[in-house]
């Protein structure tokens, strides 16, 4: 797109953002600053939050949430890769259990959460379990899809040249399915993060979600928005990290 047109688009985007913030500011103040939460009320809350004045245990909560995410993700990756490969390598098993897996995916995962809360209680374990559940499916399904789309001709040719199973796997299958696999890993991380955050907000004693609920419960709406922004940074940051790793991985295959 020619430069002038591109700059017009950027100008419109910034203008739209400014317009939305202005409307929010005015409307927020007019209606009820407590409910409307105009941007001007958020800034001092954000400052207090980052200076650890309003919630001194912010770093501890943040760390807990991050640890829950990391644990959930590692479990999801391990189980997802394991299941995915098992289903993918054995044709009959894959054909039988694959659709069953996909059918479970059609159920909104949140229905499992009360069961997890019953079993694991309100502690970190239920959040990890829920995050795991959310992240597991896309990874397993991506592994399955990745294996399915490997051209079987390549495997035949490799074996004809005397390659053993491990070599076939490393040099033929893995590069061919890496793209799909990495995409699934990235989606899995995003969903793990969502799972942990949802789990915390729906009921927890510690972590970012608990802080958010606390602020909301006391109608400290400025603090609530500030906490949401911090959590958002965490979420977006993890996805940016994942996309950078995805690009590195893409570089390995080319």
């Amino acid at each position, binding site marked *: 797109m020619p430069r002038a047109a591109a700059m017009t*688009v950027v100008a*419109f*985007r910034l203008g*739209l953002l400014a317009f939305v913030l202005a409307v929010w500011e005015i409307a927020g103040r007019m209606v009820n600053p407590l*409910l409307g*939460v105009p941007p001007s009320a958020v800034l001092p809350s954000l400052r207090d939050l980052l200076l650890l004045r309003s919630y001194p245990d912010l770093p501890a909560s943040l760390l807990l949430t991050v640890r829950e995410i990391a644990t959930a993700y590692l479990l999801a990756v391990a189980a997802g890769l394991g299941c995915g490969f098992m289903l993918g390598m054995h044709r*009959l*098993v894959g*054909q*039988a*259990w694959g*659709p*069953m897996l996909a*059918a*479970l995916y*059609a*159920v*909104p*995962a*949140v*229905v*499992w*959460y*009360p*069961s997890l*809360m*019953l*079993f694991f209680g309100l502690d970190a374990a239920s959040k990890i379990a829920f995050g795991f559940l959310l992240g597991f499916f896309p990874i397993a399904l991506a592994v399955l899809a990745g294996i399915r789309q490997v051209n079987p001709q390549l495997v035949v040719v490799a074996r004809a040249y005397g390659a053993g199973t491990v070599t076939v796997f490393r040099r033929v299958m893995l590069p061919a399915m890496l793209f799909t696999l990495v995409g699934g890993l990235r989606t899995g991380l*995003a969903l793990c*993060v*969502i799972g942990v*955050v*949802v789990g915390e*907000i*729906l009921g927890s004693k510690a972590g970012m979600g608990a802080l*958010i*609920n606390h602020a*909301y419960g006391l*109608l400290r*709406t400025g603090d*609530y*928005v500030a906490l*949401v922004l911090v*959590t*958002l940074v965490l*979420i977006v940051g993890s*996805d940016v990290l994942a996309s950078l790793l995805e690009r590195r991985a893409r570089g390995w295959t080319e």
Partner: protein
Amino acid sequence: MKVRILQLVTVIAGLGAWELVARAGWVDPLFVPAPSAVALALLRIGRGALAGLADTLGKTALAYVLSVVLGVSAGVVVGSVRLLRDVLSPYVIALYGIPKILVLPWIVLLLGYGTTPAVFYGVLHGCFPIMVLVMGAVRDVDRTLVTVARSYGATTWQLYWKVLLPAIVPSVLGGMRLGVVFCLLGVLVVEMFAGVRGMGHMLGSYANGFQAPELFAATALVSAASIAIVLVLDHVNDKLSRWRG
């Protein structure tokens, strides 16, 4: 054929093993009830559960209709006007990617408890995938078809109605398939967080009351309903896509 047998065997073996494990007392029945206990609980809560399901599905249906209307119209408008599309695309994709759970407390603060926030939140969840898919489909409409229609004297209205809309139907159907699960998800979340009726609320209270068999039964019911809805939509999708092959 062999596939079906393996699936059936898996399910039966799984249930059987679960029953044995539960009876042998290897798991605490408070947390993991036996399938037989779950089945009995299903009969017990039957009527109440179905009422709750109907309530949830009712809200979901409303949210779904609104999502489709909103998602398709917004998708068509934004997708077909070049400036709108360029300016708004990053915002739409960003909003799609942000976990909406973060604004849930605020929504409940503004809209209170019950049906309204549930429907609102359901729409919030459901309309984005539809809108994004429709925007992409509008952008990808074959230019030749538009040129042909114009050369045959099509007015702008006729271009939208007879070329654009039929061309994006596959994407709309795909979005609708995604949207229904998202809408149901949104409604259930609000029912768990701030609900007075519905399956989400029911699941939450069974969990709080440590009523494991009832909880499992209700969970199974909602899952079955969700799977059934998706299967029906897939079937409808297939029927309407004859021309695509």
